[in-house]
């Protein structure tokens, strides 16, 4: 199984000299199996360069197939889709997956992005065959030789975590999520942090505990866990209602799940390359102090990992 990172940034793309090394593109990770199944997780601006590369292969002649798993439809996870070149070549087969919603179907959510007046080319003019599949929390299915599992995350408007297994290896993708402790996120707008006096109800606590244990189960024995670690502890204290985690939350989950490697991911837009270096160093140090056998890396554009058996 091969994992390549095309976009590692959260919120919005941040070009410039401060982000040159880790990269300024928003979320996009490519997973391909030895047998050639191609899965793309999230379609932030990073997917544009992936699309350009794919157009140098069978996608150029309209013979490509790819499966795009969307964690949720916040901009930084879908904004690259209109710039994904394989969409515009007849014959290519693209399968887009995301969590089922009560209020709006996936196709219409994604259509809005390319409707007038926002974008000049509407969906029906994208010439590839595009199919949509909506997933329920906890869905478990196969894409050719890759086994996919999903579970719900704790994020405004709700996001989905994915685990992919193939070639004797497993990768889990956990973005975006808040820790499973202080706020239970749903569809409502949160104007600020919860007041110190408003305690979570018993049932909310229980929901969060269950959610966390399902995330741990999803990550169980994973060779790689890619995790939303956007916040420093101080930032989390100030804006817990934004729905993102700290590195320590990711380390805890990896520890409980017995995962082998953690990739810090969804770096804050303000985080410079040197600051990401520092976050990585301190996360490693803390994890060592607690004697946890976990390899920790920080995702960067161009990171290319081989897991399990290679084709």
């Amino acid at each position: 199984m091969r994992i390549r990172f095309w976009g590692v940034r959260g919120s919005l793309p941040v070009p410039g000299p401060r982000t040159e090394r880790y990269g300024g593109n928003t979320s996009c990770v490519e997973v391909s199996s030895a047998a050639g199944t191609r899965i793309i997780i999230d379609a932030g601006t990073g997917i544009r360069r992936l699309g350009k590369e794919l157009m140098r292969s069978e996608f150029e002649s309209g013979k490509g197939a790819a499966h795009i798993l969307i964690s949720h439809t916040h901009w930084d996870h879908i904004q690259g889709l209109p710039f994904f070149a394989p969409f515009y070549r007849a014959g290519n087969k693209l399968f887009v997956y995301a969590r089922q919603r009560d209020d709006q179907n996936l196709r219409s959510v994604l259509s809005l992005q390319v409707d007038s007046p926002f974008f000049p080319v509407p969906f029906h003019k994208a010439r590839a065959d595009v199919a949509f599949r909506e997933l329920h929390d906890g869905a478990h299915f196969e894409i050719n030789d890759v086994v996919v599992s999903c579970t719900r995350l704790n994020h405004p408007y709700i996001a989905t975590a994915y685990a992919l297994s193939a070639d004797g290896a497993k990768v889990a993708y956990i973005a975006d999520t808040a820790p499973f402790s202080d706020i239970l996120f749903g569809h409502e707008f949160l104007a600020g942090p919860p007041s110190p006096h408003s305690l979570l109800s018993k049932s909310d606590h229980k929901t969060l505990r269950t959610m966390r244990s399902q995330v741990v189960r999803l990550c169980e024995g994973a060779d790689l866990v890619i995790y939303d670690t956007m916040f420093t502890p101080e930032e989390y204290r100030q804006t817990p209602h934004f729905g993102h985690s700290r590195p320590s939350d990711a380390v805890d989950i990896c520890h409980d799940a017995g995962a082998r490697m953690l990739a810090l991911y969804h770096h804050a837009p303000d985080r410079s390359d040197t600051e990401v270096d520092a976050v990585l160093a301190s996360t490693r140090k803390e994890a060592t102090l607690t004697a946890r056998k976990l390899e920790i890396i920080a995702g960067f554009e161009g990171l290319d990992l081989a897991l399990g058996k290679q084709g």
Partner: protein
Amino acid sequence: MDVTFWGVRGSIPSPGPGTVRYGGNTACVSVRLPDGELIILDCGTGARNLGISLLAGPFGKGKGSATLLLSHAHWDHIQGFPFFGPFYVPGNSFTVYGGSRGERLLEDVLERQMAAQFFPVQSFHNMGARIEMRPLGEDKDVRVGSATVRAHANPHGPTPALAFRIDAGGKSLVYASDAGYGTGGPPQAALDLYRGVDLLIHDSTFTPEDRALRLERGLSSLEDAVDCAARAGVKKLALFHYDQDYSDHDVDELVARGRRWLEGRAAAGIEVLGAAEGLTLSL
């Protein structure tokens, strides 16, 4: 008038080592008028850095006000809206002018970007600042402080894009992003708007060769930009809205070609420069 570029890229932000000098953020330009008023031209991702710099002043205390002029609603011209810090400080006040036929339409467009499916804030009404939307027609000038603002709708593929002229304190500038002129070149009304300005910021997305391959995009080539500058007799031309795939080196080439052409057209004296993030021009 001080003009500062915060985003100069077209279509989609293009981070990476190849774009660090000119910058990879999408369209946003600020204009500080002699009387201190602030006008913001378009709200691409460059608006985020503009917002960060403004928060150090009155906008950080909820005492700021500014006018936003939106050329059109393609993503690269509005996607910085949810990330513009001063919108989140109660007390700040903004007037947003756009080209739709009524304020309801403009509101609807910006509100769709903020919707729960796409952004956690869910509505611009949740942002804190006072944001008022107003339509801007071609028929009527608008006053912003000491400045007069006039708009002209350029063709831009399936939708028009507004070009804006700002006159203040005896100085003038035009912002003409996303202009896809027909085979006859710029229409007279466009040239009239651009006539004699101190600074013309003009769409220069492509080389002429690349534009020929992508005519349907409704964007200008360097040649269109230079042609407008020469025919309208402007003093300075800033190339703008570079293709997302152009590296700093490619933009250098674009600027050098522009200079050679203007010299060849006996329009020497018009200064050509490539707009770059962080560059401020004082008129």
